[in-house]
């Protein structure tokens, strides 16, 4: 599917789009017509994807009218701090910025993101996984173009599970049993770590059917739904809190040197991970490469097929973009249908593609990973992404995740009952939201 047919389709789409632009914006915006001395439009991009240099080069090589100037100003929160400052100051933001899904409503309410709808971005609707497109858009308004996602599945040490005859858990009840059995065979080992990561816990809650947030600026700017105390949400925290209290779950923060070393030394036997995690950790897990495998997420009800997502990112066009049309083109085509970009994205950066055609391509689903002893793990991740449904975030998700992390940290240190974590977070978040002028519903 990634062959010539696919490329031809992309070229045709581009041609059509070019014509539409000329029609819309008259001669001035139709590159070259305003005078040969102006050269190509330059579009500044902030992003922190691994191996992104090649993607930018591929874009610049395939476009003569638009050239991308890329800067990596920091990962995640570091870049967001700069973006928020630039949006508040009214200048200094790039034309195009990489933004994770959970941050989109935040930047929308800060009035930082341009609606790409008028520049033809709605044409891409069918290109992307539905859940991703719905998070990136608000009705007809297109605030972001999806790039990669994080459908969740269970990474586990196949060799250790096999060796000790412990069945790979298919339900969370079995997962708790396995945790106890692992502790029994190796007192130094844990089934996993409670990693103090807002996005990760959010993914687990998503999978449990918990939908704690609701926000649509298009419907009502000042109405937000917060319901963290629903039973679907509580059961996740109860299960994990119980495992932590029993000493069956470690407490290292994810992505620290300690957590990575523990994954590589047999101290952790599983990790409820995302589609991008294998690529992210494979390089640092040298000792245990080839001993891991991926299984579908344990279910809350035996035989069910409920799924969740952890992370994923998009390209947004800021309201400060000098040429929103060109910026929209950059956001749509840096990855989008670009085969060269996805070659790098899949094989070097290990992104999980949200472009449906790329995810469904046998070159992706059929790819055997040495790290997983030849297992074709995307055969598990792709159906997960297809199963994901609607999930919304608040326009102040940083506050929610930070508060949730602080409360779980209190619980981990014994200063709080796990059963009160979500109630306290709910209370704090509602108070914050009301102070911010929102009408809060459950």
């Amino acid at each position, binding site marked *: 599917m990634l062959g010539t047919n696919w490329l031809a389709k992309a070229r045709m789409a581009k041609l059509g789009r070019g014509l539409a632009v000329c029609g819309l914006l008259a001669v001035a915006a139709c590159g070259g017509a305003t005078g040969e001395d102006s050269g190509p439009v330059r579009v500044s991009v902030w992003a922190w994807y691994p191996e992104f240099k090649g993607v930018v080069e591929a874009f610049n090589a395939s476009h003569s009218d638009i050239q991308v100037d890329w800067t990596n100003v920091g990962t995640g929160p570091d870049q967001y701090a700069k973006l928020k400052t630039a949006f508040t100051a009214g200048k200094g933001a790039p034309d195009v910025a990489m933004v994770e899904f959970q941050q989109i409503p935040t930047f929308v309410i800060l009035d930082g993101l341009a609606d790409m709808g008028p520049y033809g971005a709605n044409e891409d609707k069918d290109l992307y996984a539905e859940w991703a497109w719905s998070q990136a858009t608000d009705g007809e308004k297109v605030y972001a173009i999806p790039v990669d996602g994080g459908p969740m599945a269970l990474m586990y040490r196949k060799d250790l599970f096999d060796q000790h005859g412990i069945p790979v858990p298919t339900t969370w009840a079995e997962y708790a049993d396995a945790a106890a059995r692992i502790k029994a065979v190796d007192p130094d080992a844990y089934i996993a770590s409670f990693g103090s990561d807002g996005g990760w816990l959010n993914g687990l809650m998503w999978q449990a059917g918990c939908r704690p947030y609701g926000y649509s600026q298009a419907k009502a700017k000042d109405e937000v739904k917060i319901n963290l105390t629903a039973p679907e949400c509580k059961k996740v925290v109860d299960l994990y809190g119980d495992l932590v209290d029993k000493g069956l779950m470690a407490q290292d923060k994810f992505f620290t040197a*300690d957590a990575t070393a523990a994954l590589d030394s047999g101290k952790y036997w599983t990790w409820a991970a995302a589609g991008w995690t294998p690529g992210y950790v494979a390089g640092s897990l040298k000792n245990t490469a080839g001993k891991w495998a991926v299984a579908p997420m344990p279910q809350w009800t035996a035989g069910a097929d409920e799924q969740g997502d952890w992370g994923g990112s998009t390209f947004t066009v800021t309201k400060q973009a000098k040429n929103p049309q060109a910026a929209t083109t950059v956001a749509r085509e840096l990855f989008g249908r670009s085969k060269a970009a996805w070659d790098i994205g899949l094989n070097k950066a290990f992104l999980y593609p949200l472009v449906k055609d790329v995810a469904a391509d046998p070159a992706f689903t059929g790819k055997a990973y040495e790290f997983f002893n030849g297992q074709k793990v995307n055969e598990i991740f792709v159906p997960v992404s297809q199963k994901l449904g609607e999930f919304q975030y608040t326009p102040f998700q940083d506050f929610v995740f930070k508060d949730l*992390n602080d409360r779980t*940290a209190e619980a981990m240190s014994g200063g709080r009952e796990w059963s009160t974590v979500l109630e306290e977070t709910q209370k704090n978040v509602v108070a914050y939201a009301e102070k911010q*002028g*929102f009408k809060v519903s459950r």
Partner: protein
Amino acid sequence: MTRSIPITAPAADSPPPPHRPVESRSRRRSRRVTAHPVAGALFVLPFFLVVVAFLIVPLGYAFWLSLSSKSLALGTRFTGIDNYVRAFTDPVLLDGLLRVVLFGLVQIPIMLGIALAGALTLDAVTTKFALAFRLIAFMPYAVPAVVGALMWGFLYSRTFGPFADLPTFVGGDPIDFFSSSLLLLSLGNIVTWAWTGYNMIILYSALQGVPREMYEAAVIDGATPVQIALRVKVPAIKQAISLAAIFTVIGTMQFFTEPAIMARFAPQISAGYTPNLYAYNQAFAYSDFHYSAALSFALGFLVFVVAYAFVFINRRRGARS
């Protein structure tokens, strides 16, 4: 003649030395009101511009920001001192303040005590070893705070650090330096490591300025080296000690870098762990620049009050003795 021109010419231009004072005095008298202030202003101007551009204007802007509130849904509106009322009743800020004060009460005396002992030792020992020790003691200060915090993060690590497993040799449990009960101690150790040498050098320099005759007099009076150190040297450098203490108190109130970096290892470091960290998170995580400005001003005010109180008490005590 050609050679003499450069020699004589300046002499002709400027009046001979004996005349100068007279000339300048008369000039001063006649142009006191006009020329002098202009020249003075010109000298001050570069510094003044820097102060205005990088201190007065940003402070003024931040203060102006702090007088209005921006809510995400309602937009910006003028709220006067509301942000300050909110700050001084914000339990998160008050918790952070309490934590920092607690931290300072333990850490500052320990650090300054070590620094003073080190300085007195350095002053008493005059070998090559003392020179090397001075250099080594000062070195942590030369390490950027971020690098220092990261380094200690690894030293505290249960996997890579040499300390966490020490109790296991005698049958104990490994130490978790990031647990809520040890976290302040772990942070205090980093700060002490980074700043003791710096304070030691300040106190040591002050000791160098004490007239040696005082020590001789003390020796003749039959004082032991310890007595000289405690009864002669310490009182002689009291000014320097209180200066070091004030700077340390101010630094502690603004505690930020170490907890901000260590938060990457330690989930127990909450968003409002220290007041400065809280102000940072308000601005750059929650996009509330207005409240962040108010927090910063409130913190600045508290630092001012504490520092001033410290100076006041010190002076009173100095006057009494």
